[in-house]
């Protein structure tokens, strides 16, 4: 029964793996629900910001903020939002592929690229393949506060202010549904206003306190921060969903392997019994 014993240990070890993947699946499922809630909770702020920025665009103040002015690009900034941990299927790989495509396009236009990476996966990816990484932050956890991102965003905004970069993009995964996450690269700066709706056509302006410049500075900075924050939170929801699906697939696979091995084991055991019986019978006949 030597073969049977080996098979049995193999089954045991696969069962243990299955236990782990099942647990991870369940953890990811419950984390996903919370991440989705957080994702939803960040939306009102960004939506309100967008309205205020849109109002501001229509209000014709005497001061035009540099964040709103399109200028010729020589160097672009890209914020890449990745996950901190693996085991989430092709999520990061697809994102890097999308980011790389965008980068290749910019490079063919003669633009240089500054990178800001968020999450350990992006850190190690660009660590391996190079790229001018100007700032990085990792280990954000499952529920990052906005203060963990202030540094990274500020580096890029300062670079934009000082004219070191002329455009700013963000690459993150978009949460479509539990089964589908799609990578996207979006422009943050200069702010692309949506030319929509509204009855505020006539000429008007806010009262600014203390003055237009300072108020706008802060407002636009918060706006970009909130967009990046939203990207990060959405990416976490994607991570959890992708991990849940990947772990479910792994558990299913383990189940198949186990049933396959079980069959082989049973056959081996049956063969051993038959052999033993025939030996006994043969022995009895000989006596």
């Amino acid at each position, binding site marked *: 029964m030597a073969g049977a014993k080996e098979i049995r240990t193999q089954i045991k070890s696969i069962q243990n793996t299955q236990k782990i993947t099942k647990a991870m699946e369940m953890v990811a499922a419950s984390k996903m629900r919370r991440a989705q809630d957080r994702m939803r909770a960040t939306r009102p702020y960004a939506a309100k910001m967008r309205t205020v920025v849109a*109002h*501001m665009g229509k209000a014709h103040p005497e001061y035009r903020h540099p964040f709103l002015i399109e200028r010729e690009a020589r160097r672009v900034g890209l914020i890449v939002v990745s996950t901190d941990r693996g085991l989430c299927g092709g999520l990061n790989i697809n994102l890097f*592929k999308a980011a790389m495509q965008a980068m290749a396009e910019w490079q063919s236009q003669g633009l240089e690229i500054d990178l*800001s990476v968020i999450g350990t996966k992006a850190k190690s990816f660009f660590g391996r393949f190079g790229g001018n990484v100007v700032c*990085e932050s990792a280990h954000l956890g499952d529920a990052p506060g906005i*203060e963990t991102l202030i*540094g990274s965003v500020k580096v890029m905004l300062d670079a934009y202010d000082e004219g070191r970069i002329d455009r700013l993009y963000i690459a993150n995964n978009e949460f479509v549904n539990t089964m589908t996450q799609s990578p996207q690269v979006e422009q943050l700066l200069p702010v692309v206003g949506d030319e929509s709706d509204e009855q505020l056509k006539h000429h008007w302006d806010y*009262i600014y306190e*203390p003055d237009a410049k300072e108020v706008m500075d802060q407002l636009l900075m918060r706006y970009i921060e909130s967009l990046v924050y939203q990207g990060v939170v959405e990416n976490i929801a994607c991570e959890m969903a992708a991990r849940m699906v990947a772990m479910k697939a792994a558990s299913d696979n383990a189940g198949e392997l186990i049933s396959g091995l079980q069959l082989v084991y049973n056959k081996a055991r049956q063969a051993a019994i038959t052999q033993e019986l025939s030996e006994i019978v043969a022995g009895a006949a000989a006596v």
Partner: protein
Amino acid sequence: MAMTIHVDIVSAEEEIFSGTANMVFAPAEMGEVGIAPRHTPLLTRLKPGEVRVQVEGKEEQFFYVSGGMLEVQPHVVTVLADTAVRARDLDEAAALKAKEHAERAMKDRKSEFDFAKAKVELAEAMAQLRTIKKLREKTGV
């Protein structure tokens, strides 16, 4: 009917309050302001302090904000609250830290992005994923 104004208080992380009120008080940078319905459009920064909302037909409600922005339209007041304590030098410190991390890591790697190498590796990973998927389909789940 008494005149009311719609109030939204939101922070980057969540929605804090939404409803109609008779009057709103907020700690603007130039001093506390009271906003009644049909106030002229106003955009101002907020100091740390409390925002008081006289909710229609109910008691006054208080919310602490550690700074942020206040936008006033004739019928809508929006408070964009900061959750984190923000100060110029704190922000600066955070930015420096992020930069430092990158610089330390940059020391032992080249700044030219190696497209070819990255592409190969990504293609490999994609192929692996595809194969796994195919295998799964073949085993007929």
